[in-house]
């Protein structure tokens, strides 16, 4: 986007190989990517192309094999402090209530729980979980659980938010709902978001830029800037401009033999 500012996230020729006795798995190869501060980037690609690996490398959870990752101008060594993360599965702790699950974020960072209680309640209310604070995860629907996981990621107000197919297992209506809520929350802040999905429509709807990946080994095949006005109503998905982006991405995947047209 703007050339002048320093990127918040910069990946330079990043490669990741998982060693395995049955032959090494080349999960990522030659990944170059820059993400501007405050921007919303989504990553689309077929299953197994290394999206989750990319996120875990960025999060400092998995060591990279070669290349460099800089976050906010500094070389990545372990998980960055101001980061929130939402995994493909909600990983809520069954023995904690929803409120305690959200507050876990503060506890793990050795921050006083009392200071975050109010914010946790606000976040839960914002995501439609008011009145469920004292329930346990197993008493909630899949969509509600995923919302609680998002609240947990947002609790300590991260600068960088990493989300790995957080809505992948949800029905279309819940997904639409959460897409709207997520953009609304993001717009009020200057968080940098990396959002992984395998839905092309979702990626275009949410993002400023869509990163397309292909597999074997996982690499970036194209980066597309999405020049659509914000805030975006759900109905934007029926406009020709939106359709053109979706078509462009789909067409590109088809050319690569990943999608049939």
């Amino acid at each position, binding site marked *: 986007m703007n050339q002048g500012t320093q990127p918040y996230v910069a990946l330079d020729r990043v490669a990741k190989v998982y060693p395995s006795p049955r032959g090494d798995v080349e999960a990522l190869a030659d990944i170059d990517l820059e993400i501007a501060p405050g921007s919303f980037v989504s990553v689309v690609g077929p299953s197994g192309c290394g999206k989750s690996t990319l996120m875990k490398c960025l999060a400092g*959870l998995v060591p990279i094999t070669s290349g460099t990752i800089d976050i906010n101008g500094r070389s990545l060594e*372990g*998980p960055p*402090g101001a980061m929130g*993360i939402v995994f493909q*599965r909600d*990983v809520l*702790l069954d023995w904690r209530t929803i409120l305690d699950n959200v507050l876990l974020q503060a506890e793990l960072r050795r921050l006083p729980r009392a200071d975050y209680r109010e914010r946790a309640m606000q976040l839960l209310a914002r995501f439609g979980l008011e009145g469920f604070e004292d329930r346990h995860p*197993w008493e909630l629907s899949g969509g509600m659980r995923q919302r609680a996981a998002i609240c947990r990621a947002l609790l300590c107000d991260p600068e960088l938010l990493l989300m790995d197919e957080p809505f992948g*297992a949800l029905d279309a209506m819940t997904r639409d709902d959460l897409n709207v809520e997520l953009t609304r929350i993001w717009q009020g802040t200057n968080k940098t978001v990396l959002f992984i999905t395998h839905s092309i429509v979702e990626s275009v709807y949410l993002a400023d830029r869509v990163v397309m990946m292909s597999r074997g080994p996982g690499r970036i095949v194209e980066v597309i800037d999405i020049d659509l006005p914000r805030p975006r109503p759900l109905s934007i998905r029926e406009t020709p401009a939106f359709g053109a982006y979706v078509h462009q991405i789909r067409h590109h995947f088809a050319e690569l033999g990943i999608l049939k047209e």
Partner: protein
Amino acid sequence: MTGWRKFLMGESRTRDVLLVLAALVAIWELGVWHYEPPRIFLPPPSAILAEFLTTPELFIRHMGYTLWTTLLAFTISVALGITLSVAIVYSRLLERTIYTLLVALNSVPKVALAPLFVIWLGTGMEPKIAVAVMLALFPIVIDTVLGLRSVDPDMVNLARAARASQLQILAKIRFPNALPSLFAGMKVAISFALVGAIVGEFVAGGNGLGFLVLVAQGQFDTTRVFVSLVLLGLMGTALFYALDFAERLMLPWHVSQRGEGGSQHGG
């Protein structure tokens, strides 16, 4: 429905078990009256109860001794077992040494070592506790190690992403996650501890239900043997259910404890 019918048709495990037990006792009693086997072979339940009532305080005193030995050994096993499990899970070296050794030792018939403990520790409560701990430790370590290990890697990733310390990961994620396994191990261990205590009493000393059984057997007093056995059975059952109750209290969140309201979550 009459009260009797309701009692018979309702859903209650305790009632079912009690009914079966009552039926067995009745058959036993009637069978003994009808076939009149020698007393030394099989006394009727009524005689067992009568024998207990002649010197109840004696039986209760010995039962108390066995119970105390068992509880001490169980407590030591739990404390030692948890410590060992944590050490094994966090240290490659300990896992390769202690854990491997423990698994190998488990196939040794440990009860046979009881006389050795008497030589080492005398005839007091110590050798009995030692035998009981030896038996009870293994199931606790095996199950706790399994529980500590079988944590969702993304749960640990979540904590690491928040820059949590290893100690926090243990206290807030791994350990609570292992509690159901720990309880499973403890339920096996409590019975093993009781077995260990009895074996210890068989081998040496002048106290406990195991000692009573041994003495009564020497005098061919079968009725007395049965009194001790019944008390042992009651004790074992009570200890197991006490743990079961503690589990319900402490782990209301676990799948096995949830009511029908709980939904199963695949993802």
